[in-house]
């Protein structure tokens, strides 16, 4: 399954890129599954998406929780807590 991933702010800077398209295994169901898979994939993800970093996610541009499904998703974004306003 081809999935577009987007990274913002600290996550983007730590990974050194703003977006990429990855082929994710069919078995991944949720945001948490995707996070675990990315972290296991490469040390750079483990650092940039560290559990200490309070990473937030959006699935198809809607705020998501760890249990939110990514099945049929087109894009998933990872970022720190927002600080606008």
């Amino acid at each position: 399954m081809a999935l577009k991933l987007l990274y913002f702010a600290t996550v983007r800077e730590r990974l050194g890129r703003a977006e990429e398209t990855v082929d994710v295994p069919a078995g991944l169901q949720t945001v948490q599954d995707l996070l675990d898979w990315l972290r296991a994939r490469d040390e750079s993800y483990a650092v940039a998406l560290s559990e200490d970093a309070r990473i937030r996610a959006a699935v198809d541009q809607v705020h998501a929780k760890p249990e939110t499904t990514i099945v049929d998703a087109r894009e998933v974004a990872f970022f720190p807590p927002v600080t606008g306003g």
Partner: protein
Amino acid sequence: MSVRVQTEDFDVSAEIARLTGGRDDIGAVVTFTGLVRGEAGGRALSEMTLEHYPGMTERELERIEADAHERWPLTGTTIIHRVGPLKPADQIVLVVAASRHREAAFEAAAFLMDYLKTRAPFWKKETGRDGDGSWVDARESDDAAADKWQRRPAKR
């Protein structure tokens, strides 16, 4: 209802006029303008850069705006948020809420800001006069401010 994400500055009077022009059923307009402060945590700043998530930002702001219109009887709202590099004293964000009565306009404007702060995908990076850049940490008090609206009754 109107949402804009832009690099350009905005004019508060012009935005009020945009909501009130040509009608006489509005009794109250509340605006909130957020400005870049020249100091943060004791550090003098030279620049503030606003990053955002194009597409999601507009959608999220529209959701927040629609939520406000469900809660209060509003005659109009506007949200403008600037992105890109800004300087101390620059305007960052504008929220306008218009209604027949002042209570609804005040509450809706505060609600829009509280929700925007915790839900709209913007991130601030501060650059000090020393040249060091650092991302602003989210404030827990902002979460608390947004949460309080969960307990509020609907339309009044």
